[in-house]
């Protein structure tokens, strides 16, 4: 294990620090360099958005899953003369129900705010026969919804309990699917980058068949020859992905911030420590470039033997 770790450290430092003389042995190849830089940059740029999508949907699913699961709404629809009495009765029932932390009636302003997106501002709520809304916040393992409905039907017949289950489940499911799609996109981006770099590395190796033949003639091992290509493509992958990642992060910065309406698209981006996630993209791109070039070099050298 210790020996393996030593080999890894030696290989990694060799890859990063390099050997200026060994680097010169393989001639620079223009188009493969640009192909690697461009594909790594473009893929890193796209990866930032896929990552942002995954993290945003993850946040959304958490919020819908946690916060909304803790809240329910009680709607009281009754004739004007009975509405206050039924509201008081319902509040009394709620206060004595285990698993409910608090229950409060929404104010006229809050109800106005809820209706504003549909009816516009200055809605005379108090003159409209709209139902009274009570916000319920749960605690612990929550309450027994069926039992509560039974009690409410006796004390406040106009009360309808909505525990958000109906619409929360498909939303959470949609958010989870989006998150999965985000991660799948990241995998596809990584795979595409590996394919592009393999293509570029194969082209570079084929273009340098004569160089490889000379290196073998003078006693170069396959490991030495492969490393010359691995280092070059890994550094190009790192560099291209670094530029692409910065561009992607700048692009997410200019996206509009979350508005009060909580629109999904306006919340697409990074929050808090999630800003550190994009830093992993160039490192992963470097690792993908290294693995792809190593596999291509080994295969080509085997075929050339």
């Amino acid at each position: 294990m210790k020996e393996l770790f030593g080999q890894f450290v030696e290989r990694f430092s060799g890859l990063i620090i390099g050997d200026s003389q060994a680097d010169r042995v393989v001639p620079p190849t223009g188009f493969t360099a640009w192909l690697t830089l461009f594909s790594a940059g473009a893929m890193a740029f796209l990866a930032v958005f896929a990552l942002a999508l995954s993290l945003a949907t993850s946040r959304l699913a958490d919020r819908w899953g946690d916060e909304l699961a803790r809240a329910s709404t009680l709607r009281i629809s009754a004739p004007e003369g009975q509405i206050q009495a039924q509201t008081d009765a319902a509040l009394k029932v709620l206060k004595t129900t285990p698993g409910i932390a608090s229950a409060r009636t929404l104010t006229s302003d809050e109800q106005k705010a809820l209706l504003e997106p549909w009816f516009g501002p200055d809605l005379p709520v108090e003159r409209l026969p709209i139902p009274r809304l009570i916000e319920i916040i749960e605690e612990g393992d929550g309450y027994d919804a069926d039992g509560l409905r039974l009690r409410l039907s006796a004390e406040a017949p106009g009360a309808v309990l909505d525990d958000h289950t109906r619409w929360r489940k498909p939303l959470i499911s949609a958010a989870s699917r989006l998150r999965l799609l985000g991660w799948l996109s990241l995998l596809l981006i990584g795979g595409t980058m590996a394919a592009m770099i393999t293509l570029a590395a194969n082209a570079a190796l084929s273009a340098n068949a004569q160089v490889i033949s000379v290196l073998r003639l003078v006693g170069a091992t396959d490991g030495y020859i492969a490393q010359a290509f691995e280092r070059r493509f890994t550094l190009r992958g790192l560099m291209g992905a670094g530029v692409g990642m910065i561009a992607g992060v700048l692009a997410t910065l200019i996206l509009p911030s979350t508005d009060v309406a909580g629109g999904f698209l306006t919340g697409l981006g990074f929050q808090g420590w999630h800003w550190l996630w994009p830093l992993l993209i160039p490192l992963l791109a470097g690792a993908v470039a290294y693995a792809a070039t190593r596999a291509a070099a080994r295969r080509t050298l085997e075929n050339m033997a």
Partner: protein
Amino acid sequence: MIELENVAYSYGGGELLSDISLRLQPGSFHFLTGPSGAGKTTLLKLCYGALFPTAGQVQLFDRDVRSLDRDDIALARRRIGVVHQDCQFLNHLSVEENIALPLTVSGRDMLNEGANLRELVNWVGLKSRAEALPPELSGGERQRAALARAVIMSPDVILADEPTGNVDWEMSQRLLRLLIELNRMGKTVMIATHDLGLIRAAKSQVQARVLRISNRRLQLAGADL
């Protein structure tokens, strides 16, 4: 050192070499001759592990070449200096860098090897051309650079394939003197050539064994040379 025992080599359905036995003793000097296409280059390639025999056994430094993996063969080649007729340089590197290539690939510290390198470049008469690129060299300069590259690791064996093929008589004599000088330093030398004049010129300066490939087999050539 290098030993071939009943070696045969077939290519494209036809047998190119048959029942070849050869032993390169330390410090010996060999000429390998024969008409073009006789298999001189193939035999040299068998001697440095670039080709594997289709029958028989090739031993490189007491190890059967078939038991060696590619890295083992690479390490064995550091003990065998090869000079090709077409030289094979890396055209983007200077002459000096090309000569130093075996040191570079074996991970030697160039700071320590700098003096030896300069001395060698001087010895083959390429001091003024050290910074030139290979395509800028004449045929003779290329051959001398290839020879310098072949000997920089101080190999035990030097295999030269038509080293005087592209140079004039004067230059071929100069290259021959360099190879004889290396043999006097204790190196084993084998030169594949169809230039009988070169062999005659060498025989007055060095005790050389002349081998000829004829009808796929290796024979000792003698009186006619």
